[in-house]
């Protein structure tokens, strides 16, 4: 096993890209996603298979490894750009693992100085076993549940917890057994079983902080995707309420319908605001900064909370027109509902925020709101029940 102990580096501290640059990137991403979306949106089937041609186009435009450094074959942009593309993909129900490839797998590979293979990647975290193999090699084995898009990935980058700490290694697609599974929106969430022999310099020890950052990255990615999906669901809902005539007038003229939509819009707005804060915090201070944990926790909790409210309102306004496979609404509501449980649900993140508040103490609570960071946190809050792991 490599003796190097890599630690979480997070993003480099940097200035946020300008609004105009992000708008331009959003327009580019949308134009690509839109071209391929028709294939999936109106097809009456539950399956959402990986879209290989969309992936090729995105890869050719540098959008699949947006936040990965150029030295590792990426585009060298930051988390703000990555979030724009993730949200745009979710607006179009894009069936591609960009979040998993760029924010999780490539990040772990760069962190441990491993090569980033071409093609879609995914990442899973869980317990693994490590045994001595022949000629100084190591035999790593384990079972990872609900790995996103594993069946379509070139490789699974594993963040494994073994007896002596956390390790990172790569399991190529051909060397594991995959049992298909799905989330609520029928996106692939597969069970990956592997037992492979690896040269010991390909099993890298990493610090504890890496596991924490892995979860934060996943949570931020899902929050961004959820915002994209919910904004689209809201847009479809407003359009439907404007055009659908019942009782001789558009649905949107009924005050009860207006209030449903206003409720949904409020949730979308706060989820977006919380996401914006998290992106700014991570872009400027990096994931490793304590303020990033708080901001991502808030963003994921809001996104998860909004998913239920917005889905309910969107389907209620659409009526029976939206609740079957023949309408596109389900792509957005079901994804948002599926993503609310991935990388921590509202409850677990709220508990984490509560712990941070208690660590900070009543005296410093308002400062926590205005500064967003826990610099004033007391070292030992004591007495707080530990939250279950996310």
């Amino acid at each position, binding site marked *: 096993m490599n003796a190097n102990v890599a630690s979480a580096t997070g993003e480099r501290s940097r200035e946020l890209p300008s609004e105009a640059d992000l708008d331009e990137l959003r327009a580019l991403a949308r134009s690509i996603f839109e071209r391929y979306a028709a294939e999936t949106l109106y097809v009456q089937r539950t399956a959402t298979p990986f879209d290989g041609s969309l992936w090729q186009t995105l890869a050719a435009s540098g959008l699949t490894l947006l936040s990965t450094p150029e030295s590792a074959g990426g585009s060298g942009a930051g988390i703000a750009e990555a979030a724009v593309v993730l949200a745009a993909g979710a607006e179009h129900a894009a069936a591609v693992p960009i979040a998993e490839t760029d924010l999780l797998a490539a990040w772990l590979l760069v962190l441990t100085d491993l090569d980033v293979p071409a093609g879609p990647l995914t990442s899973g975290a869980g317990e693994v076993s490590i045994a001595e193999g022949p000629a100084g090699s190591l035999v790593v084995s384990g079972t990872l549940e609900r790995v996103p898009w594993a069946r379509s990935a070139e490789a699974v980058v594993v963040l494994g917890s073994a007896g002596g700490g956390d390790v990172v290694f790569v399991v190529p697609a051909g060397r594991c057994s995959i049992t298909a599974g799905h989330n609520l929106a029928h996106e692939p969430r597969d069970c990956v079983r592997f037992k492979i022999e690896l040269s010991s310099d390909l099993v890298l020890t990493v610090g504890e902080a890496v596991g924490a950052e892995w979860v934060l990255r996943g949570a931020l990615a899902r929050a961004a995707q959820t915002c994209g999906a919910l*904004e689209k669901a809201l847009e479809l809902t*407003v359009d439907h309420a404007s055009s659908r005539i019942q009782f001789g007038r558009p649905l949107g003229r009924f005050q009860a319908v207006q209030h449903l939509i206003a409720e949904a819009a*409020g949730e979308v707005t706060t989820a977006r605001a919380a996401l914006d804060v998290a992106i700014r915090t991570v872009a400027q201070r990096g994931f490793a900064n304590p303020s990033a944990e708080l901001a991502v*926790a808030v963003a994921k909790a809001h996104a998860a909370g909004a998913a239920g409210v917005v889905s309910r309102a969107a389907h209620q306004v659409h009526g029976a027109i939206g609740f079957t496979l023949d309408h596109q609404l389900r792509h957005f509501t079901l994804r948002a509902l599926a993503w609310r449980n991935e990388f921590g649900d509202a409850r677990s993140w*709220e*508990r984490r*925020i*509560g712990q941070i508040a208690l660590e900070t103490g009543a005296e410093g609570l*308002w400062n926590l709101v205005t500064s967003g960071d826990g610099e004033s946190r007391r070292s030992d809050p004591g007495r707080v029940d530990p*939250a279950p792991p996310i």
Partner: protein
Amino acid sequence: VRANLAPPLVTLAPHSEALRDEVRSFLAEQRAVGGFVPRVDSWISGWDEQFSRRLADRGWLGMTIPTQYGGHGRSHLDRYVVTEELLAAGAPVAAHWVADRQVGPSLMRYGTDEQRQRYLPGIARGEIFFAIGMSEPEAGSDLANVQTRAVKVPGGWKLSGTKVWTSGAHHARACVVLARSAPLDPTDRHAGLSQFIVELDSPGIDIRPIKLLTGQHHFNEVLLERVFVPDELVLGQAGDGWAQVTSELAIERSGPERILSTFPLLVSYLTELERQTRIDAEDTRLVGALLGRVLTLRQLSLSIAGALAEGRPVDIPAAVVKNLGTRFEGELVDLIASHANTDPGPDAPDAFSRMLAEGLLHAPGFTLRGGTSEILRTVMSRGFGLR
């Protein structure tokens, strides 16, 4: 739909953050010497003219008023910082609230130079307090239905009618009254309304208390009987009253007072938890859920303040913030009341119990004042083109 919902984030300038530190130090000193007792909804419940003058001494009243009128020529974001610090601490800001938030900016926008000279320096010194006479017995959400009449007489106007829920009229120097100054045009109910500055020592005025659920005297019924208002105290153009009172609704709706009115109770609840030997996981989660929402709503409110300063349209986000923020203020009280094993006591010596009672007794007003939640949802719908 997508573009306008959450305005871009604002990052406060270093000088604004330095100002925040100054306000915090001042508040810590004041608390240490018993200069104020933290209250829930302190912009209604905390009337303390001495405290207002201490703020004025530090330049924190009339902050956005130009220096030539006795103000401090500072930015809206600087004023935002001072205001949110005061509200979060539960400091008593009710006395100067209306003059500082509403009347100062209105005078700058619509007032004559004489009106500005007459009132603004006193507002910035914390010596002149104002009331606003909008609601009436028959005009609540339907403000255009005001029945108070202004009849032209030589040299001025005679006002007759009844205003209700008039904050602080019993202490204020003057009240800005919305009245109908021309006969009702059924095709345009918003036409023919005007704003008048009524000096409250004028003959023909009767001010009667309407008490809060806590028993506190904050609101009033103000009866006007042929009260003379000279021409020079008409605010803005006669007939433009509706446009004038609605033009700054986005500012009024998106401010920190739509989010933070009950924040002092959250701080007090956390203090209670800190006294416990073991903190329940569900209580921890509740604190986290509430804090997460404060963080986001406050950032959204600040973003709107930034967009307003740049002249961007924010009517929909402002309605969103007020709708969600005021509901949150009430939910915070309700959730803490249902989790804490404490009886709310309006006159309890224990601060937490007293603030819990204050929160519960003030809560019904949160989602009403400044535009009911139902009206706000209608505003949002109009913004989405649904009406």
